């Protein structure tokens, strides 16, 4: 039981992300959208943390900015665009497909293609090696004789 409680606590600890008492009277709907958005945004001060997780003052400012924009009825795309305009695509953990990220998005498929090609070549070669060599006429004649 203790373990289950511990596991549950751990699982939900991430919900208590942005310092629940960060603002007075948080609106659960706004907080939910903030969390969904901020989880995909990189904090620029402590890189590799999200804006949702980070304790940096800038992350707090940006969370409050997102709250304001959510309250103003801005869409997720508008909020993301607002941040990209200021900090660049670097803030997005989910990068857009643009010329400079083509390799990033296409790379795995490229590698898959290379892998498949190599596999096909190897299998074919193996098969060719294993196929029994054709018998020379002399051998065939000898077998026929033995089988008679």
């Amino acid at each position: 039981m203790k373990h289950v409680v511990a596991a549950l606590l751990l699982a939900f600890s991430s919900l208590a992300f942005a310092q629940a008492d960060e603002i007075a009277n948080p609106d659960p709907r706004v907080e939910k959208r903030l969390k969904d958005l901020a989880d995909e945004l990189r904090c620029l001060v402590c890189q590799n943390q999200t804006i949702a997780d980070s304790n940096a003052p800038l992350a707090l400012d940006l969370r409050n900015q997102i709250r304001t924009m959510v309250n103003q009825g801005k869409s997720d795309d508008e909020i993301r665009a607002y941040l990209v305009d200021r900090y660049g695509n670097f803030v997005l953990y989910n990068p857009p497909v643009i010329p400079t990220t083509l390799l990033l998005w296409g790379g795995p498929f490229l590698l898959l293609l290379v892998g498949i090609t190599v596999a096909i070549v190897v299998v074919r070669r193996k098969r060719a090696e294993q196929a029994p060599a054709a018998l020379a006429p002399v051998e065939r004649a000898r077998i026929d004789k033995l089988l008679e």
Partner: protein
Amino acid sequence: MKSLKYIIPLVIFAALAAFFAVGLTKDPREVPSPLIDKPAPAFKLAELHDAGKVFTPEEMKGKVWMLNVWASWCVSCRVEHPLLVDMSKRNQVPIVGLNYKDTRDAGLKWLDKLGNPYVLSAYDVEGKVGIDYGVYGVPETFVIDKQGVIRYKQIGPITPEAWDKTILPLIRKLNA
């Protein structure tokens, strides 16, 4: 065909090594600003020295100038400061300060003690203008041209090297 077997891993290794070598020379803290070659975001802020006076970047139109984001709590600003004071004495470029998330008191004391290289400092206590300028690591410095377009951004303190090799030549070019 045999020799290919030995060459391929070597080529892969060379490619990886090249990627890593390039990666080593890059500073992940320096995020390219999307604001370069864009008009400097407009703002209206009270001045640090005079809460009754308002500064807007419009006032600097027609001049090549620098916007330097600083704060009294910022350690690297202290490192950069003597260089700014030196520049202001030589009158090379007007420097406007953006006093970022500071208190008026602490900011003024800091300037009294270390010298004031700024034409004026705008007082951004909430850091809202900082957000508009994509500020994430104070000090940051923007070089803005006569048309009010941001031409260069220095993240972190201006080093003598960056000043001599990049910023000063750029300012001279923009003034020409």
